[in-house]
């Protein structure tokens, strides 16, 4: 039977916690949060992981031992754990608990088994062992326990931010569901109630620290004035708890929610065995009746709070609610009936806070209470909604089945058309590049120079020498004796986000940066857009992310399309292909705000010491700036989707490079020897060993 004499014996400030299987994904993540919240995890153990540490952002790293006995031997006296969290896999739980019992006796008081899917046989054995050896055990499948006044927790109660949901107060939450401990704590804040303890009992068929034990501890706890129960069907725990409450004359009122009545009669019913042993006390309905009988009141009705205050002042045993959010008015009713002060000023009231509403004509047919209005949205969501949902950059296409259908092309049996424009007229009067842009944009280019810049981009993309991956692809095809179309496909197959496709990321960067500005015409200089400030802000954000990522030991997102493996020797570097595009713009007295921004960005990175040199604005950036110049007015006018704008730079690169790949193939096929791309065996390295 339970050894704890009070709730604080389950968990209090100064308790030292050790975690089994601490290197597991969930165990390490939860331990990190706990460590930041309350710094009570002294160590963990995990077979074969001795010597590691769990790095904690607060700096209180957690040492990892290979086995429990080794941990107990090596830890100094003041660090030896008195609480154990079991995160082991189901098959290992029994062994790990036995190990704790064998080597932790006299030291360890309580074990919390977080593991799910532990067999009922093992669960029963854990209870028996712990009873015999004098340990308390909570679980299995518990989320843990939190002692709010002491600001300590075990397990994952409170999720990633326990301090948000749990403010110190007078309500003790005992719940079969772990998540509901958090939810109820949040709800109680709206009634001005804080929490003394939150205990997730676990929801396996056998609850090893059952309700009657916990209720007894809560009755004796000085910080607890009332007890909130979240009850699920199954077991006779509540029946036994209420019998004890009656017999021992419990004084603290209950707020009760019983879940699961909707499922009754819909699942396979218990067989005779269950019926014989468990009787009819285990269903949700039966449990509701048990509580109603104990409380001496009908289920709480928020519309009749006054009547309930009067009745509850007499019965003083508490209320049962029908829906979970009725806990808030029920708590207020209880406080009024008991003539108790609130723990604190109520947090924001529990009301509907809609973020996006468009009820259309339906709104006119609804009563006012069902037409919610959007008010201030909490941050950071409010700003994000403004930026991503209400900014309105780009077109929202309508979707439909596109089988046998196209907006982009047609053929009436006489004239093939592109977006309605006669292909024949295109042939007579326009260039290839203009026709391609018509196909991609859905309308003709607006300026002649756009076609010329696009053409220059295609030329720039043709090749960067035979060593490029895509040229190698074409050459491999020739060497293998493939036909030219295969070489073209292979050229396309050997470009991707890293080789040639970085323009998509650059386009995304430009959209992110300029979507918050008033930019309409990218070819005009005098639009009052402070490019240096934009560049400085972007670099500053980039540096922050880079620093955080480096500290966390993870890769960080680089600024796309800056720098080149060849053109990188000087303090200030240039990609000669980009220079040609820039020169064309200058010679023709043209301006592209995106290219200007990119150059300023490269310089700003250097001046803020984020880079050691001014990186070249590379050809991918130049192509992206050309295409984004063409796309931008169409985005602002909502004639083009953002997705299409993001795709354009890579499409241009691919179109140019596939033509280049064809050229590479023709050369290689005519003058190369068969299989000449093959790497001789002697030049290949083996990075393994023979295994048979």
């Amino acid at each position: 039977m339970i050894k704890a004499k009070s709730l604080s014996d389950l968990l209090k400030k100064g308790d030292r916690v050790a975690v089994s299987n601490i290197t597991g994904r969930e165990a390490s993540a939860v331990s990190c949060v706990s460590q930041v919240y309350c710094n009570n995890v002294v160590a963990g153990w995990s077979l074969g992981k001795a010597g590691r540490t769990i790095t904690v952002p607060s700096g209180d790293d957690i040492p990892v031992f290979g086995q429990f006995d080794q941990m107990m031997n090596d830890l100094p006296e003041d660090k030896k754990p008195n609480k154990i969290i079991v995160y082991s896999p189901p098959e290992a739980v029994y062994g790990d608990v036995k190990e704790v019992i064998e080597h932790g006796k006299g030291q360890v008081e309580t074990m919390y088994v977080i593991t799910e899917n532990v067999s009922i046989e093992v669960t029963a054995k854990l209870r028996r062992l712990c009873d015999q050896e004098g340990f308390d055990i909570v679980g299995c499948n518990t989320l843990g326990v939190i002692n709010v006044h002491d600001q300590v927790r075990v397990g994952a109660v409170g999720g990633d931010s326990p301090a948000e949901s749990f403010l110190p107060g007078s309500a003790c939450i005992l719940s079969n569901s772990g998540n509901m401990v958090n939810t109820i704590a949040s709800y109680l804040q709206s009634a001005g109630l804080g929490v003394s303890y939150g205990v997730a009992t676990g929801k396996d068929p056998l609850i090893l620290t059952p309700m009657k034990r916990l209720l007894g501890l809560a009755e004796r706890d000085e910080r607890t004035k009332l007890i909130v129960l979240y009850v699920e069907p199954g077991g006779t725990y509540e029946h036994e708890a209420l019998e004890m409450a009656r017999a021992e004359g419990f004084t603290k009122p209950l707020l009760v929610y019983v879940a699961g009545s909707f499922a009754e009669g819909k699942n396979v019913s218990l067989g005779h065995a269950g019926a014989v042993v468990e009787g009819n006390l285990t269903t949700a309905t039966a449990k509701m009746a048990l509580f109603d009988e104990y409380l001496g009141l009908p289920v709480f009705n928020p519309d009749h709070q006054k009547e309930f205050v009067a009745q509850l002042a007499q019965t003083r045993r508490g209320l049962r609610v029908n829906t979970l959010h009725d806990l808030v008015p029920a708590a207020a009713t209880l406080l009024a009936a008991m003539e108790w002060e609130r723990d604190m000023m109520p947090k924001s009231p529990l009301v509907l806070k809609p973020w996006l509403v468009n009820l259309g004509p339906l709104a006119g047919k609804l009563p006012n209470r069902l037409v919610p209005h959007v008010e201030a949205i909490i941050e950071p969501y409010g700003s994000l909604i403004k930026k991503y949902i209400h900014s309105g950059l780009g077109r929202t296409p309508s979707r439909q089945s596109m089988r046998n259908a196209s907006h982009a092309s047609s053929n009436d049996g006489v004239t093939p058309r592109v977006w309605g424009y006669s292909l024949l007229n295109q042939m007579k009067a326009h260039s290839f590049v203009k026709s391609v842009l018509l196909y991609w944009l859905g309308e003709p280019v607006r300026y002649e120079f756009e076609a010329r810049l696009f053409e220059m981009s295609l030329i720039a993309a043709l090749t960067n020498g035979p060593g490029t991956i895509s040229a190698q692809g074409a050459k491999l095809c020739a060497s293998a004796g493939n036909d030219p179309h295969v070489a073209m496909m292979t050229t396309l197959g050997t470009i991707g986000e890293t080789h040639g496709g970085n323009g998509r990321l650059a386009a995304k960067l430009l959209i992110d940066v300029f979507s918050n500005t008033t930019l309409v015409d990218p070819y005009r200089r005098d639009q009052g857009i402070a490019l240096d400030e934009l560049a400085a802000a972007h670099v500053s954000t980039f540096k922050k992310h880079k620093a955080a990522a480096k500290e966390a030991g993870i890769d960080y997102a680089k600024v796309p399309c800056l720098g080149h493996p060849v053109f990188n020797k000087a303090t200030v570097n240039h990609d000669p292909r980009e220079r040609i595009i820039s020169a064309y713009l200058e010679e023709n007295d043209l301006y592209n705000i995106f290219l200007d921004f990119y150059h300023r960005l490269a310089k700003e990175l250097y001046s803020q010491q984020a880079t050691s040199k001014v990186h070249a604005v590379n050809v991918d950036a130049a192509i992206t700036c050309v295409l984004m110049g063409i796309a931008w007015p169409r985005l602002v006018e909502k004639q083009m989707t953002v997705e299409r704008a993001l795709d354009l730079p890579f499409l241009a690169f691919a179109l140019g490079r596939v033509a280049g790949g064809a050229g590479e193939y023709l050369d290689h096929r005519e003058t190369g020897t068969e299989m000449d791309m093959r790497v001789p065996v002697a030049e290949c390295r083996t990075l393994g060993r023979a295994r048979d």
Partner: protein
Amino acid sequence: MNVRVGELGFLKELAGRFKIPAPDYVVEPVAQSVVREKLERWGAGIIKPDVLTGKRGKAGMVRTVTDYREAVRMLKQVAATEVSGQQPRTAYMVQSVPADLEVFSAITYHSGLLGPSLTLSLEGGVDIESVADSAKATIPVCVFRGLNAYEASEALSKLGLDGQLNANLARCLVSLWDLFISTGMLSCEINPWRVTRSGEVHACDFKATFDENNRKFRDLGIQWPEYPTNETPFEEEMKDWAASSYRGQAHVSDLGGKRILPILFGGGASTIIIETLSQLGGDPIFLSDFGGNPPYERMKQTAAICFKHYLGEATLLLILGGKANNTRIDVTFAAIADALQEWVDEHGPRDIPVVVGRGGPGLIQGLGQLKKTLDNLGMPYVFFGPDTPITMVAAYAAELASLPAEPQAEAAPSTDAAPQTDAAPQEVTS
């Protein structure tokens, strides 16, 4: 799901292995000559359907036969007749054994004792739970030491069973414990043991459930038969779909409601949402739990199955979950939006309100994706973030769904639809 086993499985696989005396039996299809030979030896046989449901006797599906021709006919008839809505796998005939007494027994885990227990009763039948305490005995069993013959004998004595009968039955109960603990069961019953005054014992009728978390039952190496279920077509399709991949959950249970089509995320949250909807008259069509960070294709097909079965008749679409830890909202909402679009492409517009509540990674992008689609489809909507409790969103949805339905023609999207601020021209003009 925990695997269940009935009498036929017990007779075939377990009784012999654990030395529990049981009557002889034959299983349909069986040759007439075999039936004739068995009945000549037994005198009488009892024909039963092989189905995992109670009340077989009350349904008139348990028949005593003495004539072999009738037995053959009855075997075929019982095998083809549903019991409580469930189709039997087959039918079988067991030897009718004489009895002066029937003893009902169950071994299960007891929430009050927090361990296994043995319950014995002299009265059975459907209303066994109402058997008076004086007519039944429950004893705790040490999960380590197990049930010994002395303890079993004591329990039998409490019911007034003594002598040879007590000794023989006690031995059988020990064997039953052996079966229970060696195979990782949650519960098992023999209802009843048929006992003669001379102490002859037969285990008649058996029912057990294995604990799916206990690998012992898998180690038995027995392939338990699959019983026809009474799942609805929706449940069946979703179950097959759920089983096709381990990525993301797709659990549903039909509730028989008519109004709210709920696409819900998270086990605990789903329960509480359905609970709230049910209590407030939301009349949810099914219970669902689609968490576990499903990838796009998985979520899209999951939503498509829901829409295929119920979007046509629902009066409100509810997409609701708590604040996700891992599930990507942008991915799951884009998938739901696309499944909705495809349903409308195929079946035509549907203008029921959509109520959404969610939190988690990629939330704003997800809401944006869903909003775009709903704007395009002209479906009215209200979106909530994680700062509105899920039960309040559910309560709002329940009230919205319980309003009397407008005639379809009036409610259809019309030219006076609310301004679709983000909606762009349907086609790019050239």
